């Protein structure tokens, strides 16, 4: 239990070593229970439809059948590649807009003195407590008024200006010493330059965390795209997957291949940027 660290000099008794081995085994078993479903997904995805149910008896299919992967993309009606593109396109733009606008706003909140600053910030903070479902209906109505319904803009714009990202980056920027901006302003930098050449580079870890979360969140987003998109060509991956499942629910291998591919980008992002992500969450700054 707990951080039962033994002092480095002391020799460890056999009891302790046995305990550690037991703990390692438990960790391993737990890890296995997290891993096996994914393994199963792969195994299902390379089976024939007729053979999927066999896996519980034999673990592996008779032959590895990789056909399902190209099949996912080569379909007459469902353009899976298009969904992929849409998800990347939407999540990418949202991330870019969020990084730019939130970091600028955070600069105004953390570095500039102006009348009314704290009141406006309080307004931002207050909205953080409002659950997302409250926003769905009115935003939907607003988007329809603005003619962004069933359009990329409707997918991107309404989710690109989060108070949350602003709050996160402001907190991060507050940790950067003000003497750096002062030094820069004495060196001859104006506000834009201080923002772009001093604060932005220094806030990079915070921005990366925010960007990862913005991207992943919007890559996985379901509710909003579901209600805002009617055109099949605009479907993002989650919506596309759902449609795919509705048409091909019987074909488990095909569905598994599709969903497995949808999972790959987040895994890659996580593995590459793990360090930042874990830090970001552990700062307690990111929504649990």
């Amino acid at each position, binding site marked *: 239990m707990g951080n039962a660290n033994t002092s480095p000099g002391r020799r460890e008794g056999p009891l302790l070593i046995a305990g550690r081995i037991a703990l390692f085994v438990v960790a391993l078993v737990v890890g296995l229970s997290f891993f096996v479903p994914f393994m199963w997904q792969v195994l299902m995805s390379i089976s024939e439809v007729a053979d999927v149910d066999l896996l519980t008896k034999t673990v592996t299919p008779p032959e590895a059948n990789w056909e399902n992967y190209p099949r996912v993309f080569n379909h007459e009606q469902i353009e899976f590649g298009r969904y992929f593109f849409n998800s990347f396109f939407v999540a990418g733009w949202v991330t870019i807009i969020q990084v730019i606008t939130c970091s600028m706003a955070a600069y105004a909140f953390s570095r500039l003195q102006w009348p009314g600053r704290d009141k406006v910030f309080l307004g931002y903070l207050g909205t953080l407590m409002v659950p997302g479902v409250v926003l769905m209906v009115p935003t939907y109505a607003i988007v329809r008024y603005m003619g962004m319904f069933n359009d990329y803009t409707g997918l991107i714009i309404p989710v690109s200006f989060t108070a949350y990202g602003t709050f996160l980056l402001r907190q991060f920027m507050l940790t950067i*010493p003000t*003497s*750096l901006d*002062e*030094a*820069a*302003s*004495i*060196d*001859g*930098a*104006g506000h834009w*330059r201080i923002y772009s050449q*001093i604060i932005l*580079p*220094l806030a*990079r870890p915070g921005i990366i965390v925010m960007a990862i979360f913005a991207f992943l969140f919007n890559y996985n987003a379901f509710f909003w795209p579901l209600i805002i998109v009617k055109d099949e060509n605009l479907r993002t991956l989650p919506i596309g997957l759902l449609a795919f499942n509705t048409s091909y629910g019987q074909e488990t291998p095909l569905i598994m291949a599709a969903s497995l591919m949808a999972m790959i980008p987040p895994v890659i992002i996580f593995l590459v940027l793990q360090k930042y992500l874990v830090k970001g969450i552990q700062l307690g700054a990111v929504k649990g």
Partner: protein
Amino acid sequence: MAEVKLDHVRKVYDGTVVAVEDFHLTIKDGEFVVLVGPSGCGKSTTLRMVAGLEEISDGTISIGDRVVNDVLPKDRDIAMVFQNYALYPHMTVYKNMAFGLMLRKLPRDQIHTRVEQTAAMLGIEHLLKRRPKALSGGQRQRVALGRAIVREPKVFLFDEPLSNLDAKLRVTTRTEIKNLHQRLKTTTIYVTHDQEEAMTLGDRIVVMSEGKVQQVDTPLNIYRRPANRFVAAFLGSPPMNFIQGKLEESEGGLHFMDGQYIDLTLPGEMASRVASHKGKAVTLGFRPTAMSETAEGKFAGPGNSLTLQTSVVEPLGERIDVSCTSSTGGHLVARIEARDDFPVGDRVTFHLDMSHVHLFADGEFGPNLVHPSA
């Protein structure tokens, strides 16, 4: 190169906190002025107003012939060294130094030569490719200096640049800053709370307290003729000894008496200067070095002895510091010739050099009665 003029400058934070009050001073071209004072007395605020980092509530500041009240820091042609150095962590040392020059759109090769020269001057050529994180405290300090110097500004501003260094490095860097100034002859305003640093560095020292300037003068003048009791107490180590008492006339002369055992006769010239305070409460001040065990030379003479209860002896080498308690309970220190067999714990009689004794009017900021300021 420029003269800096602060004309009745005042700074009020949030409409209530008066940080600086009626700061009036002209700093000559090439002069090295040190602002010194206890924490919170408004030194940094004054410096930051010169830099343009704080708005000026009242009065004007000019650099050269230009009033800079509404000039942005970047256009004031100044350079500043911060207490925490404020080096840009994401830039190499070279870029840190070149940043200001690049913003001023200097040609590349010119920037290069200037950075290289400055680095050579400070002995940090080998660090140019490193990031601040990979430098020691002293090296960072040098880079911060270099970043200021390379700009060749009209005015240098330093805000406690040495306070993050260890004692030894502080002394050597201090000397170096002085050398640099003698070489570059740039007008400099230097903030510190360390009176020793102020004494050694400044052409002139500005002693501040509670937002007000207490005295402006050369180090030695301030030391010898502190304008008031605050300045006297602030400068000098160990600090000046003070005894509360009264001026009374008896036996044809003016005497300082604490009402118990102390009775000192004031020398004639001093007596005539303070005659108007006869019968009033005053504070007697004298430096620990103005005390002696023997009544020889300048310590000779009648009516200059003082018997104190000694408690602790701190040997310093040539001399020793003796902590004493006066009859009224005041704490005093005497710095006298070293000797091994000093009778610690006994009552000892000391002799004062009466020509170096000060008298202050009552109160923390009581003016110096012996050397009234102009």
